[in-house]
Each structure stands twice: as C-alpha cells, then as structure tokens.
C-alpha cells in the first residue's frame, strides 16, 4: 500500500505510466487518471492515442473482469467515472485534432424507463472506439427516436431498457421504423439487464449486446459490413 502511495506519475516512463493508468482506472481513481492524461498530453501524445491506448485499454480490462464476475457494478461505475474524467479533458482536443471516426450512433433509454447507467457506459465506450455518439437521454417515446434519426442520420440506433415492463417498447420503435420504411437505413442494437439474444431477435433488432464491450465490437462489425456493402 505504501509503495502505491509513493508512485509519482510524472516520474514514470510512457509504458509504465500507461500500465499505472490501467491500474488506476481499475481502482476508479479519477484524479490520477486526469493527471495521467495531462502528463501524456504534455509529452506530446495525441489525444486519440491517449484515449485508445490508455483509457480504452484500461477500461477493456475492467469490462472483461465484469463479464467474468470478478468486478461488479459499483466497481465498473467507479472505473467509468474515472474514465469520464479523462474523456472530459480529451473530448475537445479530439474534435480539434480530427481523430478518425468509425461511425455515428443515436442512443437512448426507452419510454417509461429512467435507467441510464448501462446506456452511459455504452456511450462512453463507443466514443472511446471512435464513434460519434448522440445521446438522447432517458424515457424516450418513439417520436424522439425518429426525430434524432432524421436529424443526425446515424449508422446505428441503440436502445436501452432495464425493466421487463419497458423493454417491449423497443419493439414499438422498431415496428414504427418498419412501417415508415426506415428500418433498413439503420443498424439497430439493443441492450439492458433483462434482455437476451432471443428477445433481440424476436423484436427485430440487428443484435442484442450483453455489455458495453460487446456493443462496441458488434457496432464495429456491422458498420464495416455496411460500408463493405456500400463499396460493393
């Protein structure tokens, strides 16, 4: 413990610092993450490299340990909060430096549901993976989704629900897209604790995503497939 307290981030070389940031992210140490980000910026790292190599790299470890039952929701939230601290510094710089953009996503929690922890995690990890994310918040009726889709023209629509009583509303949104002939324009990803793959298929989503890491991988796969189809 005393060894950890003695670590001075600015005295570590780049590799050691990134490794330490992985640990600090794992432990949810927001101030240390912010300090690490600032040090790497001072050393000339690009915002994109800091994001992908230090923050997303660390958060991926957190995601794996959550999936494997080693970490639980409170620890993941602390880690996410720490990552958010780093992202707040990097976001304006990413916009300035023209980081690569993988695709665009509109995401929101469905009508009747105010839970957004999972959605926020997905948003953050998607941003970390190079997606532009437009988060329309909680308790969204179908009109909100349609409006955001029209305005933002994203590649992906993401919907989240935590309650068994609200998750059927995802089908309302998808059915409306079908009725309006818009369904094929978007990749529809759904997630939330009570959902499963079977439900995702039954309501006509493209995929159910078990957690934020899966959401990122699924989004990348679908977007690259879509781009390939367009190129073909």
């Amino acid at each position, binding site marked *: 413990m005393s060894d950890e307290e003695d670590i001075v981030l600015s005295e570590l070389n780049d590799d050691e610092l990134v490794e330490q940031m992985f640990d600090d992210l794992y432990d949810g140490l927001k101030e240390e993450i912010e300090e690490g980000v600032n040090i790497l910026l001072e050393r000339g790292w690009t915002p994109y490299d800091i994001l992908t190599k230090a923050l997303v790299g660390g958060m991926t470890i957190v995601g794996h340990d959550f999936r494997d039952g080693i970490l*639980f*929701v*409170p*620890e993941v*939230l*602390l880690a996410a*909060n720490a990552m958010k601290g780093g992202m707040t510094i990097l976001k304006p710089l990413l916009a300035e430096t023209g980081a690569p953009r993988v695709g665009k996503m509109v995401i929101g929690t469905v009508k*009747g*549901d*105010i*839970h*957004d*922890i999972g959605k926020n995690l997905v948003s953050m990890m998607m941003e970390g993976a190079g997606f532009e994310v437009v988060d329309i918040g*909680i*308790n969204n009726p179908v009109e909100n989704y349609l409006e955001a889709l029209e305005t933002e023209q994203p590649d992906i629509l993401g919907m989240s629900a935590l*309650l*068994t*009583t609200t*998750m059927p509303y995802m089908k309302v949104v998808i059915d409306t897209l079908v009725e309006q002939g818009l369904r094929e324009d978007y990749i529809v990803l759904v997630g939330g604790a*009570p959902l499963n793959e079977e*439900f995702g298929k039954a309501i006509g989503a493209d995929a159910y995503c078990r957690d934020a890491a899966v959401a990122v991988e699924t989004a990348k796969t679908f977007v690259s497939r879509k781009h390939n189809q367009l190129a073909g």
Partner: protein
Amino acid sequence: MMQPTELPDDASLTTSGYNSDSQGRILLLACGALAREILDLKRRNGWDHMALTCLPAILHVHPEKITQAVQEAIEKHREDYDQIFVVYADCGTGGLLEKACTELGVEMVKGPHCYSFFEGNQAFEARGEDETTAFYLTDFLARQFDAFVWKPLGLDRHPELRDMYFGNYTKLVYQAQIDDPNLTARARDCADRMGLEFERRFTGYGDLETTLAEWANRKP
C-alpha cells in the same frame, strides 16, 4: 394480536426463506418478502388449510434465478399438497415465471411486481407515466433496505455513486402495508439517504389479499 416473536425475522426471510409448520392441503409458495403479510392474512382470516413456504427474498437481486428456484420448489412440494399457488408476480422474470407456472399447471399472482399488486394492479397501471421517476419501497423493503438496495449497489462502500444510481429518480414512494410509525420513519430515512422526496401511501395488502382470499375459498 400476534406477538412479534412469532413472526419470522427479516434477515432469515431475505437469505433463507421460511417454512410454516401448519399442515394444509394447499401450499402457498411465496417470496420471502411477503411472508409476514401472508402470515398476517392467514391468521386474520383463519386460512389454516393453506401452508406457507417462502423462497429467500434476496433472489430479487438476481431475478433471472427466480423462475428456476420456483420450478424446483414446485417439483419438491407437489406430492405433499392437493394444490400449489405461487405468490410471486412477474418480478423481473420477463414472463418466464408465468410461462413456467402455466406449464406446471400452477397459478400465480397477477401483475408485474409487488409494488403493483399491493397498490392494486389497476390503480398502479393507471398511475403509469406519472410515476416513471418513483422508487418504491414496501414494508419489507423499508426494513431490509440495506440488504436489498444499499449494499448490493455498493453504496455502503462508495456513497459517491448515489447520484449515478438515483439521479433520475425524483421521489421515494413508501407503500405502507400496515400502519407503523417506526417503519414510516425508516422509509423516510431511506428517502433522505437516496436524496429523494418522500411520499407515504397506505396500500394495505391490495390485490395480494383479494387473490389469496379467492384461492382460499375456491372449491377443490
């Protein structure tokens, strides 16, 4: 008046469940969170022909485990009783519990969860969108708030996470099944800890009582 010592303690109901000694031809297979309420109804109505077995209430923290636990309990007890009734609502199983009960030929309580049937499913549904931002506590949950809410969410260790969990809620609705000033004070304290406004709403036993009464008086 039943003495408190005759009631099962909350910690046992949360983690172990409950088995009544009474012999009956009907078994009520219930959630531990409903044990005291069902025992009270049994006593007041003289429903001695209905025995009670409760599964640990803490299953609600992992609702995906409820269906299998209930199925196994039905299989275990069905030889010993003429009839079994499941005193659970959907309880976050997404229809799986209802499906399992239907397949096993067993009836269960209607509604999405106990907050709904205590208030009365129709009344609860009618509130609908007005209460999207309400967090509900029953008598049992007011007594077991730490075991069901505070500790599983890690707020005992990381109180700074509170607003990440509850930031979108606006009020805590305490649905009182009985009049107990101590419980009301406790529920109010829960609201304060969560940073939410407090509302007390007396529900009594709602649809739980009418459902059990119907089952109790049904001809075999």
